[in-house]
């Protein structure tokens, strides 16, 4: 008996200023799956995530969460946005920010119950943030802040966790730590993860499925199914080569600005 998908995106289309950003994107995510949403900058990953969250309405297409049509008040989606700026002047501890994940949407002053405080402690322990739980959020490093935001999203035990480019501004060590953390959380709590990134290599060890987005179209499946020369060439509409070396993947195309997927690697000429 196969579980129904926790997230079902079907034929989503949206255009801005006459330019098609997403042109019929479809994919499914099942319980506990780790999915990477891969595509270069500006390709529409954030837009897609915002559509899933209900912050943006698509021109056509549908998003279903746990079988029900997406309503913006659904609590089964956790979210870690891109570029959250936390001021060092703000008097708020990491612990307080995480606690707001439980009840930040409620009215009233809210004295937290013992049970609620225990939930907060638990999740802080799970993301390994206990040592800076009482520090100011604005004083934390990038990786530490990321953990706190993840804890904030997870403390209410959602079914799906969406992360928008969480690895973008982290040093390589922090990238590894966060990826490992997410994988652990995903398997321990059965939370499905949809994580957008422009570089897939850091995720290869943990990704169950990949949704590869470019030119408004997407291919989804396992890494082996999708990250192949023929599939990606069809997606791009021109020839690309996929090279696999030492467990890493390199997508190579003719030198054109739009085809550069790996901004920190030079574009190789294939003749």
């Amino acid at each position, binding site marked *: 008996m196969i579980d129904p998908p926790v997230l079902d995106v079907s034929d989503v289309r949206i255009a801005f200023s006459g330019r098609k950003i997403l042109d019929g994107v479809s994919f499914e995510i099942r319980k506990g799956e780790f999915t990477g949403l891969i595509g270069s900058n500006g390709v529409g990953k954030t837009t897609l995530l915002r559509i899933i*969250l*209900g*912050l943006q309405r698509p021109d056509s297409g549908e998003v279903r969460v746990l079988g029900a049509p997406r309503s*913006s*008040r*659904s*609590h089964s*989606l956790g*979210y*870690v*946005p891109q570029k*959250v700026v*936390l001021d060092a*002047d*703000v*008097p*708020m*501890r990491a612990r*307080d*920010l995480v606690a*707001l994940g439980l*009840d*930040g*949407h*409620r*009215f*009233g*002053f*809210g004295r937290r119950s013992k049970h609620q405080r225990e939930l907060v402690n638990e999740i802080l322990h799970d993301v390994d943030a206990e040592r800076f739980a*009482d*520090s*100011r*959020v604005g*004083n934390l490093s990038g990786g530490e802040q990321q953990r706190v*935001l993840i804890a*904030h*999203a997870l403390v209410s035990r959602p079914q799906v966790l969406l992360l928008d480019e969480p690895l973008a501004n982290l040093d390589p060590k922090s990238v590894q730590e966060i990826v490992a953390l997410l994988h652990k959380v995903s398997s321990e709590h059965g939370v499905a993860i949809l994580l957008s990134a422009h570089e897939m290599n850091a995720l290869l060890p943990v990704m169950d499925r990949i949704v590869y987005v470019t030119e408004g179209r997407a291919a989804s499946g396992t890494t082996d199914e999708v990250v192949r020369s023929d599939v990606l060439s069809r997606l791009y509409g021109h020839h690309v080569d996929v090279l696999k070396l030492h467990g890493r993947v390199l997508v190579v195309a003719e030198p054109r600005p739009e085809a550069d997927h790996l901004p920190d690697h030079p574009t190789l000429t294939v003749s």
Partner: protein
Amino acid sequence: MFAGFMVNAWEVATIVAVVAGVVGFFVVLRGSAFPAHAIPNGAFAGAAGANLIGLNPLVGLGAFALLAALGIGTLGRRGRRDVVTALALVLMLAIGAAFLSQSTEYEPEIFSLLFGEILGVSSAEILPVAILGLACVIAVGVLYRRLLLTSIIPEIAAARGLQPNRVELAFLIVLACATTMTVPVVGALLIFTLMIGPPAAARSFTNRPGFALIVSVAIALVTVWAAIACSFETNWPVGFYVGTYSAAGYGLGRAYAAWERRRGGQLGPDALIATLQSATS
């Protein structure tokens, strides 16, 4: 200075300080210093207008404050918020100038409305001020967690189904109410300093939002009491002392934070206690 006629001033000032500390905590958190300045300033135009048609100036003050809050809240969604605040403010001031140009009289009351006046507080004013003050504090209490969430991580708040725009509008309305009711002692022009100086200073002394709110009220109380005492002694306007003491409080808070950082310490009650211990030993 604690004679019978001054008691009213102390009572009202205390209420004003509590409201300023509570509302001001979020003014600083949300970076709403400009609206906190613009709303009472613009509201003053309403006072002039009410004066013109023979109404109690406070009625006009409240009406225009509300108008300013609604204007900034709704127009601010589309345009840049600081631009909208500036234009709404000057529009109201210009309307006020138009009102004033129509009347040949000029009430000296206007000065005390603007800069504060401790002797002019009658005991009849205390109850309305207390009720409005309570309403403001309760409103902030009701919105507390939503305000925190939308102030610090608005992107996530939106995803959780909160509407940051609505929360902002509600907060501006509370701000309008708070600035209107503080006119009796502190004056419309200077209430905003009470809402930014003490809360900004409070941030240096604790890491917890709840404590910061309490410290903010405490510093506001000290500021207002000192201002009244000094004003009573020298006869100079209360507003002068409120403005300068708020600035001094802000300066002290910044200095303490900088000093703490240089010592490599983490801001918070532990640090404060440690400092006090080492100072007294």
